[in-house]
């Protein structure tokens, strides 16, 4: 069965420190991969996506993610975290191929807290 695992439910980092949020997926083939961010009381905003090509993808707000096929992972990174990055982060996968309706499978989310 398809699934997405975000092993870290809650992460706390100091402002200015680097960040890595983990995402592992279980899927029959290489899916489409996404990272979304959600601030309290808001909808989800797309940070970045991987469809094909370069396995290191750049996103908005200084985030990047690396697709590693051998590890079935798509970890999100940021070199220097800002207090405004405190939010909930969701990894998601989507199916490829005909009959695709764009449905996504979401991980359970990682809450990021930023210490001053």
């Amino acid at each position, binding site marked *: 069965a398809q699934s997405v695992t975000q092993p870290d439910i809650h992460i706390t980092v100091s402002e200015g420190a680097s960040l890595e949020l983990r995402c592992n997926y279980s899927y029959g083939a290489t899916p*489409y991969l*996404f990272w*979304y961010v959600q601030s309290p*009381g*808001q*909808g*989800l*905003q*797309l940070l970045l*996506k991987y*469809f094909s090509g370069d396995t290191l993808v750049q996103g908005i707000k200084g985030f990047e993610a690396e697709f590693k096929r051998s590890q079935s992972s798509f970890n999100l990174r940021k070199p220097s975290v800002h207090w405004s990055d405190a939010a909930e982060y*969701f990894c998601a996968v*989507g199916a490829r191929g005909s009959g*695709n*309706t*764009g*449905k*996504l499978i*979401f*991980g*359970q*989310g990682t*809450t990021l807290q930023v210490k001053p």
Partner: protein
Amino acid sequence: DAMVIQNPRYQVTQFGKPVTLSCSQTLNHNVMYWYQQKSSQAPKLLFHYYDKDFNNEADTPDNFQSRRPNTSFCFLDIRSPGLGDAAMYLCATSRVGTGSYEQYFGPGTRLTVT
């Protein structure tokens, strides 16, 4: 700016009183989704419309219905809200079939059931 709009942002309804949540989009996307999200959980897909075709998730209660009268609008109807239906309801859209499959989300409607 092209966007996904949800109205109202906050909705209070009484136990058992029907309620309708609204979503509109200016992106001209062919697929519209409705999610339910409870506190500290991932969004849970309720159903989606691919053009005019309605696709219900197997575990979506019959209490939840949806309508899509045209490309731009989609409604979520909760026929008899229970206390357990209090949640954030998110609408999202996607352009499927053109190689771009990301979903764009609205700001959500926070539903309170009293």
